[in-house]
């Protein structure tokens, strides 16, 4: 992670102006980074603790949402209608994309608005506030993977070697969520109604992404949609382990490029706006 808050840069700049010895400068930067990473860990643990300590069924609640959604779509598309989307076993096909979607949805829908007082009282590199949500939702995602495993076993889905691409999907997803988070978090502070708009956009994006269907199911006219949406490449990586036909390296490449662009833009916007954000909180 190379994102730096402008405040940090300003401090460093003025230090350089004072002709401080280079060693003390780099030591300082290193301890800063160590503090930031430790705080990131603490905040992530804190998020998870809050999440799981407030109710006995904490863990169950966090997996119930994607599970119910998947069961509903499974029921509609395989029991009510004859399925023409995706691949069999459809429930595994759904869960492969639904679980990461919950991560994406949870992290983007949540901004650092939630802990305004904390942001106002602790001086940390500001990207930590965004990264902690990416991390805590990401860990919740990892903890929900046993659900996928259980359904895969009971529905007899065939695992292939491409399951090794799963971690790549996780890395790409984390980068995408971080980039969008850095982009959205400050904007939500400036334009409060954006919070509602984000929720709407996310709902549209759910259907616009290959979750209940695969990229191959799209009619030719809608294909550009899949290429413009970085989630399609990410989900194809998540699915490759069970459904090798879903993997399209060109699509993954385009998605990775878009993700990199979003991350760069997010870093830029975040750096430029963080001073204003802190005043606004």
């Amino acid at each position, binding site marked *: 992670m190379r994102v730096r808050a*402008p405040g940090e840069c300003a401090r460093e700049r003025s230090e350089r102006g004072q002709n401080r010895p280079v060693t003390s400068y780099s030591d300082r930067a290193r301890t800063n980074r160590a503090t930031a990473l430790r705080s990131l860990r603490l905040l992530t*643990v*804190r998020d998870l603790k809050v999440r799981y300590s407030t109710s006995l069924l904490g863990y169950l609640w966090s997996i119930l949402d994607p599970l119910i959604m998947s069961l509903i779509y499974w029921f509609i598309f395989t029991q009510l209608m004859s399925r023409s989307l995706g691949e069999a076993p459809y429930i595994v096909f759904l869960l492969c994309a639904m679980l990461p979607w919950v991560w994406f949805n949870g992290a983007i829908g949540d901004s650092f608005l939630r802990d305004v*007082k904390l942001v106002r*009282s602790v*001086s*940390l590199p500001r990207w930590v506030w965004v990264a902690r949500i990416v991390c805590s939702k990401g860990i919740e995602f990892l903890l929900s993977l046993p659900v996928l495993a259980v359904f895969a076993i009971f529905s007899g889905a065939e695992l292939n070697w491409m399951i090794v691409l799963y971690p790549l999907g996780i890395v790409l997803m984390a980068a995408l969520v971080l980039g969008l988070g850095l982009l959205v978090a400050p904007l939500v502070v400036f334009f409060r109604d954006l919070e509602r708009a984000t929720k709407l956009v996310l709902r549209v994006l759910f259907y616009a992404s290959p979750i209940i269907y695969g990229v191959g199911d799209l009619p030719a006219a809608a294909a550009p949609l899949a290429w413009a949406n970085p989630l399609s490449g990410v989900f194809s990586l998540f699915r490759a382990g069970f459904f090798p036909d879903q993997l399209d390296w060109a699509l993954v490449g385009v998605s990775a490029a878009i993700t990199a662009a979003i991350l760069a833009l997010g870093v830029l916007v975040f750096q430029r706006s963080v001073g204003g954000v*802190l*005043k606004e909180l």
Partner: protein
Amino acid sequence: MPSEDTSIITAAGLGVRFRRNRGARRSFKDLFSGKRRRSRAGEFWALREVSFSVRAGEAIGVVGRNGQGKSTLLKLVAGVLLPDEGAVRVHGGVAPLIELTGGFAGDLTVRDNIHLTAGMHGLSRRQIAERFDSIVGFAEADDVLDTPFKHLSSGMKVRVAFAVVSQLDEPVLLVDEVLAVGDKAFRNKCYRRIDELLAEGKTLFLVSHNERDLRRFCSRGLYLDKGRLQFDGPIDEALARYNADHNEG
């Protein structure tokens, strides 16, 4: 320190601008335009051209009326607000007693909160373990260690928060009006703790409206008015200037 310069805080030409009203629209264009061009109507300078430097071990009181930039100045030193102009350099960490209870999670127990807050301010796990008992002892919070933070009385919340932050090993202590809360016995305890910290050579930055507190702890005063640093000198003179300017009499 290799350099002969012993200042621990240096502020040079500090300025912060706030929006006067929420209605003033902000556009996406702002994000990409240069800093120079971003001065717009409906904004005012909460603080401008404030420069000073503080030597290690000094105790500084900040005086001024409400809304003249005292808390803003403290936030800039704490690094929780970023200046629009100038820079502030703090050599070493800062223990901020600002928005004291803000960093605490209501759903977690006092024990968890102490660990988290101390960790976030840079203490290692071992250091926290070493200081845990004295933090709890100071706050007199033995009975509520496993109570969720949100169930504490407001006085107890502040006690716990003060206990944690005053145990940090940071060379600079920023105090913003927190001494006004808590009962008398605890307040005296806080005073003693601040005396101890000062005796250890820590640097104190105190914002208060209480002249007794200011005279008791501080030797030097910064008097802020209309966002400018009007006076920087002995605390008695700073208070005299302040009283002369704002004598309601």
